[in-house]
């Protein structure tokens, strides 16, 4: 059984390391530090931690001011509240001036589970990708998370990192090196390419493995940098495999599927299938139950691959 690790915990631990290395790292939260795990940083660096209370708009504005004065602020909340509650603040206080703020949102997607609709973040990628200048990263496991957090700290400009609530399987080993803006070939294949982000990468790998037993040979691409998206990798996948399936824990509008479809339509049209949540809100349930209900399991991916190959 693959080891499952909390990406949130790794985020908190990485912040502590960064805090030790660089006195300009500061952290903000909006009364969720026990869940986002920024509390680890708060404990070690109380003077560099600002709990803004349940006030996401203000938190984002303060982060912008800190960044404008040379600090490297990491601001965290749940993905549904930031960007959800503070979109205009992200737009004018951070995106437009290109402030060096790192928004790290946890509890992305529907695998938040039992808390239900109010806490499921299914629009955040669409919102944040719409803001000019934001770099958007959705790590696939804890190893990628740790590295992405470091890369965000070291790269100037606005970043959004989306983490999920549950522990998720490791899809990398320690030798992995995260490369900003680059897709990662997780598995080679000729019949079709599955492009996935976040915890769907593990499901995509499982699907590809199952399909190979049926004699269907399909590749898997992890797209950790959702924006700017790796156009070359998508063009190559379209050209070499002739069919693409995207899978994401997000609405079909404005996330991975939309972005890949833009590249495919512009540069190399091939049949595509987009696995995502379709214009609805999910309800309470266990994460696994919800993924099944909304068509985001390995089985769903397998079916989509079979379908898309028929349309080649």
């Amino acid at each position: 059984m693959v080891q499952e690790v909390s990406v949130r915990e790794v985020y908190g631990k990485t912040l502590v390391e960064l805090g030790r290395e660089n006195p300009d790292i500061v952290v903000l939260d909006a009364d969720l530090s026990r869940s986002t795990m920024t509390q680890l940083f708060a404990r070690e660096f109380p003077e560099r931690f600002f709990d803004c209370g349940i006030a996401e708009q203000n938190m984002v504005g303060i982060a912008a001011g800190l960044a404008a004065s040379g600090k490297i602020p990491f601001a965290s909340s749940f993905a549904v509240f930031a960007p959800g509650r503070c979109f205009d603040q992200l737009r004018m206080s951070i995106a437009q001036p290109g402030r060096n703020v790192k928004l790290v949102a946890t509890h992305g997607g529907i695998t938040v589970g039992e808390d239900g609709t109010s806490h499921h973040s299914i629009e955040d990628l669409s919102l944040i990708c719409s803001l000019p200048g934001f770099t958007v990263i959705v790590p696939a496991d804890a190893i990628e998370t740790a590295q992405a957090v470091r890369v965000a700290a070291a790269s100037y400009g606005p970043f959004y990192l989306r983490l999920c609530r549950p522990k998720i399987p490791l899809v990398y080993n320690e030798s992995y090196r995260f490369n900003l803006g680059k897709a990662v070939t997780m598995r080679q294949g000729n019949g079709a390419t599955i492009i996935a982000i976040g915890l769907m990468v593990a499901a995509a790998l499982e699907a590809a493995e199952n399909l190979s037993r049926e004699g269907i040979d399909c590749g898997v691409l992890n797209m950790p940098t959702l924006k700017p998206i790796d156009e070359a990798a998508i063009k190559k996948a379209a050209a070499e495999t002739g069919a693409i399936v995207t899978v994401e824990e997000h609405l079909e509008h404005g996330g991975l599927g939309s972005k890949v479809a833009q590249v495919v339509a512009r540069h190399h049209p091939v049949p595509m299938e987009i696995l995502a949540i379709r214009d609805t809100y999910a309800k309470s349930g266990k994460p696994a139950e919800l993924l099944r209900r909304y068509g985001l399991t390995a089985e769903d991916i397998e079916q989509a691959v079979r379908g898309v190959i028929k349309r080649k």
Partner: protein
Amino acid sequence: MPLPESGESLSSTSAGDVEAEVFSSRAAGTKSLKEMKDIAKRLRRHIITMIGKAGSGHPGGSLSAVEIVTALYFRVLRHKPQDPCWSDRDRFILSKGHAAPLLYATLAECGYFSVEELSTLRRLDSRLQGHTDCTVTPGVEMSAGALGQGLSFAIGVALAGRLNSQNYRVYVLLGDGECDEGQVWEAAMAAAHFKVDNLVAIVDNNGQQIDGWNREVMSLDPFNQKWQAFGWQVIEVDGHNLTQLTQALDQAKLTKGQPTVIIAHTIKGKGVSFMENNPDFHGKAPDAVQVDKALKELE
């Protein structure tokens, strides 16, 4: 703590030599009261001329804050127009970004760029955008125009100064209508909680917003008490009285452990008779005849 409703003289205050202290012990480069009054008049003329030429813009809320911004830039702020990014500069953050013409005129008078450039307001490729844009205009700290965001930003700047042991001070100008925004009160709470005493908010309390008087659109009362309840030192002044403004800004410097808000009572459209207290001129440019008339009044 309200100041007396006196004129330019502060002789009725207990600090009898305040005026002398305020206006004689300044660093070189700051202006006398007389010079500041002349500057204020020039700023008003620039505002009218620029907006008239552009054919759109916000005269009312620019004119009401002229003395506030004059007192800051020509008396209080430590800044270097030749080095706008000097890291120890005092910061002025215009949260009510529609008063951009006032800020541009002030920056030009200080020498951040030429007065001639003011005539490019709102034109394609101009550095003087319709609302402030910190990515193009030297001396502009924040891109504003979406009301309610400046105080939060100012807190961040103030906290960074504290963390860096820099002794710059942060001044942020808010509109009273802007204080309808919930974010302003989130920030008000946070500023007191974080005890940012290097932060001063100034409210251009002209009593009006777009749809009319504050008290009719959305009452702010009791405004002074609201700020006090949020943990701020509150000073009320006549916002067209340079002496009162300067004194209040000085008093704020001495206050430790809490932020200060200066509620500056002003008149929207101040200085141009037909614009004063006239909501029509919130966001409308004067036509050519009105520009002439206004400039005559401002001679």
